[in-house]
């Protein structure tokens, strides 16, 4: 059971930030469309939010890259 869950998790959710951003974008669009009837703008809003989620996740990846570089190059004792 645990293995099956891990397989599904690995298939769909690789990065929690990205998955959260994507799901929240869909919920936000659904609620806004329900309240204000966004019409054709709804699709573009959804697309923009998804793009922002990808950007958000990549920014975090970029920060992780920076941190990794810092540890590999700067910390005394790591390569000694």
């Amino acid at each position, binding site marked *: 059971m645990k293995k099956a869950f891990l*397989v599904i998790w690995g*298939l*769909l*959710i*690789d*990065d929690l930030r*990205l*998955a959260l951003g*994507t*799901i929240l974008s*869909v919920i936000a*669009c*659904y609620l806004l*469309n*329900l309240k204000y009837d*966004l*019409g*054709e703008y*709804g*699709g573009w809003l*959804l*697309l923009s939010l*998804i*793009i922002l*989620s*990808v*950007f958000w*996740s*990549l920014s975090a*990846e*970029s920060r992780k*890259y*920076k941190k990794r*570089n*810092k540890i590999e*190059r*700067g910390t005394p004792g790591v390569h000694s």
Partner: protein
Amino acid sequence: MNFYTVTASFLGTAVEFVEALTIFLAVGFTKGWKTAIYGAVTAIVILALLVGLLGYPLVKLVPFHTIQLVIGLALLLFGVRWLRKAIARYAGLKEMHDEEKAYLEEVEKQKTHVEKGKSIDIFGFTTVFNGVFLEGLEAAFIVLTFGVAANSMPSAVAGALIAIALVCLLGFLLKKPLSMIPENMLKFAIGIMLTCFGVIWVGEAIGIEWWQGDLSILVVLTVLLIVSLFQIKYFSLCATVKGRDQ
């Protein structure tokens, strides 16, 4: 036949089967073809049973809007995951996937694990089974979702079968991993396509109207491509600046 579905299904399946073929060849050359073939066939049979037993009845029993939302969301999650990975690799934030390197690593791993006196090597069998099953599961997921969402299962299956045949043929002719196939480029392309279809289908499922109907697919694809190229440029600049700063 639906051209978009055939293309997306073909690309998605091809990427997954290139990875599975790498494992299959590594085990075949080191542990014997019998082990590799048994592992692959067992995985394919179990996969086919799973898809047949769970996939098709689900499509027939659950209302279309619910399926569209669940499948659209799954496609979207799958697509943005691939797109993010491909952008990160192009930008230099992640290491590029190298089939040649993966193949040599797998060969080394298989060589260090020797089982004598058995016609089928359990370690080799398990490795091929896991590889083919997991990569096949991803491919089956893409084929099922595209087939159901576009209401064109034959197109999705046709795309997948062409991809499997082509990858197997190339693997058989070359007898080495298909490292010349630009895997990251394929992942980038399929990531954009999956994200695009995911956005469209989720949008339709939650009651959003798309400008000019199906013509929006082309516009969304173009927007995603341009934005992704911009993100590659932006994050590769970030990586360079950060690298220089250290």
